[in-house]
């Protein structure tokens, strides 16, 4: 209780609340503009967090992410273009609903159920994280090794595209993480005499490169950089929302739970949460045929789930130091930069910090209602900002922001290098999330692997001796085996099918 009161005192200060409000407005702006993602919004905020205290930095990340994920719904309903990938699952329904004359209901529901979903995820996070932290206290290097590997493996398996591409992306990230002085002997690896590389690849320029520069490169070349014109008049946004809320109250609960759990799965995120919630909603609905024609039910489910996943992703991040999605990967990067190592001890040593994050989530999701309604009202103006002006300004902000973290021009070269690598990977269907998680967690994985293998004196069976370690190890191996078995079964089926046709 003392920790909670201290957290309240820490959060309810003018500068923290001002950071939360400003980052929320920034998140709304970025999320509303098609092509600018929530990840990019957080990546752009990162350099500024360097100059903030840890709680303000977390406030900036929480505010921007929560709002940007919601704001992606706005152009979805107005223009049929999702602002962020997390809104893509239901932008057809939102747009068609608004075409039927229910624009206010579509956007009003989005903001209200995004907020409720976000609050649901936050409450789940508040209760689940401390309980899991108790369990995590029992972990040794063996359990941490398996858990990190399990997180990275699941990031590969659930990533878009073929699994082999996910594995390659993960290995590239892990290899990038080996650059610098090694932990066992302090031996310089892959530094080639460059002193800038001795401390390893700095995560912040890498994140900005991967999520901002690669996206700028893609957008300026592949899109026509024209602003969007919105003609519709926006009336009372809350009209009818209560009625549909009552009708679909169980959908909100179901999608809140689903979104939180999906968010907690490493490598997933809001986009996957909304697609799965939409699919589940359709499969369980009594009005399946209405989906895709402008039906509110799917919008309620998916918009609740994607915002619930934002908080859900923080559960493994804070308890185990394993981020649930790319957004929390950036948040962890910020924490590492501040010298804060997430893990179960953070709940014992600095409970006020953990409570402060809980409170920030609650405030951000409550603020979402007035801010979201306001953003919808001014969306006509936001959407008219031409990307031809926006992208050059974003580019220069990344340059000055990345430089300012360590006053190092080397970081800019690193940012550019990773940005081009991420762009090429994206173009060729290699997912970015496994690479970034590999880069972020590579050191942790190697530390736990080396510690365990030395303790086990090379005997790999020791990795399965402790019950918890054995369970985690078996789950990890099943994750690897499952796609192989699945591939083999489908191969057998297709062979059988072609044989029967002959």
């Amino acid at each position, binding site marked *: 209780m003392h920790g909670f009161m201290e957290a309240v005192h820490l959060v309810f200060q003018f500068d923290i609340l001002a950071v939360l409000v400003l980052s929320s407005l920034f998140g709304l702006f970025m999320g509303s503009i098609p092509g600018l993602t929530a990840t990019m919004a957080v990546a752009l905020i990162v350099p500024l967090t360097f*100059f903030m205290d840890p709680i303000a930095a977390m406030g900036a990340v929480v505010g921007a992410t929560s709002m940007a994920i919601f704001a992606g719904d706005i152009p979805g309903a107005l223009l049929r273009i999702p602002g962020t990938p997390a809104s893509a699952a239901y932008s057809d329904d939102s747009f068609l609903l608004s075409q039927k004359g229910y624009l206010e209901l579509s956007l009003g529901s989005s903001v209200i159920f995004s907020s409720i979903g976000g609050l649901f995820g936050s409450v789940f996070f508040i209760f689940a994280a401390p309980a899991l932290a108790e369990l995590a206290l029992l972990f040794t290097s063996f359990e941490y090794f398996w858990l990190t590997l399990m997180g990275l493996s699941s990031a590969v398996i659930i990533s878009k595209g073929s699994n*082999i591409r996910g*594995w*390659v992306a993960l*290995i*590239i990230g*892990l*290899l990038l993480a*080996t650059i610098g002085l*090694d932990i*066992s*002997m302090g*031996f310089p*690896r*892959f530094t080639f005499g460059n002193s800038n590389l001795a401390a390893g690849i700095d995560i912040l320029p890498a994140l900005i490169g991967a999520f901002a*520069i690669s996206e*700028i*490169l893609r957008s*300026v*070349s*592949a899109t026509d*950089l024209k602003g969007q014109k919105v003609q519709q008049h926006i009336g009372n946004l809350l009209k009818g929302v209560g009625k549909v809320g009552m009708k679909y109250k169980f959908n909100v609960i179901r999608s809140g739970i689903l979104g939180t759990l999906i968010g907690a799965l490493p490598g997933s995120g809001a986009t996957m949460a909304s697609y799965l919630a939409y699919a589940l909603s359709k499969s369980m609905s009594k009005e399946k045929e209405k989906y895709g024609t402008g039906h509110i039910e799917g919008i309620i489910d998916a918009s609740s789930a994607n915002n619930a996943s934002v908080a859900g992703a923080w559960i493994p991040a804070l308890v185990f130091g394993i981020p649930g999605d790319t957004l929390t990967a950036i948040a962890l990067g910020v924490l590492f930069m501040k010298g804060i190592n997430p893990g179960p001890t953070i709940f014992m040593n600095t409970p006020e910090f953990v409570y402060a994050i809980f409170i920030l989530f609650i405030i951000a999701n409550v603020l979402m209602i007035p801010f979201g309604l306001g953003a919808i009202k001014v969306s006509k103006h936001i959407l008219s900002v*031409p990307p*031809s*002006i926006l*992208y*050059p*300004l974003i*580019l*220069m*902000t990344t*340059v*000055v922001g990345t*430089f*300012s973290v360590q*006053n190092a*021009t080397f970081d*800019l*070269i690193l*940012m*550019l290098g990773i940005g*081009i690598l991420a762009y*090429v990977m994206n*173009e*060729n269907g290699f997912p970015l999330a496994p690479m970034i998680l590999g880069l972020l967690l590579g050191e942790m994985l*190697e530390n736990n*692997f*080396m510690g365990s*293998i*030395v303790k086990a004196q*090379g005997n790999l069976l020791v990795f399965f001796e402790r019950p918890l370690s054995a369970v985690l190890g078996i789950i990890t191996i099943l994750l690897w085996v499952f796609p192989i078995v699945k591939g083999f079964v489908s191969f057998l089926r297709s062979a059988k099918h072609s044989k029967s046709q002959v």
Partner: protein
Amino acid sequence: MKFNDALIGGVLLILSVAILGYVNTFPAMPLSTYGPATFPKLLGTGLLASSVYLIISGIRNRKTVPWTQFAAWTQDRRRWLRFMEIPLAILGYVIIAPFFGYILYVFVALVLILLDFTEMRWKVSIITAAVFSVVSFLIFSNGLMVPLPQGFLGSII
């Protein structure tokens, strides 16, 4: 720019062989077979196996997937220019900004990029670049105490 898997696999194969060769030169811990090479060796082996898989699947699909495939935008010279302006602006900051100083460099670079992106809207480009360069300088240099490059103008002032 899409490449056939066999080409990507070939590049990764060369990379993995180079990594495996290089980590063999790393020392081991005293009285142990493990050391700085252990982890990268495992990763290099994984990369090698993945690259072989990609090469095989690329060769198998070579009739349906071309060796290289360029997106539609690559036919447009203006879009190439836009694409190239991004790395050039970053490298320009590294190489030129220390001499010209932050404000002058950012102003000139932004005007040039904005003129291209907005199809020569001079007024908008100059005003936007001027406001951004001065405001960002004040925020980062005066507000956050970041030692942004002053350039020759800084020494004169």
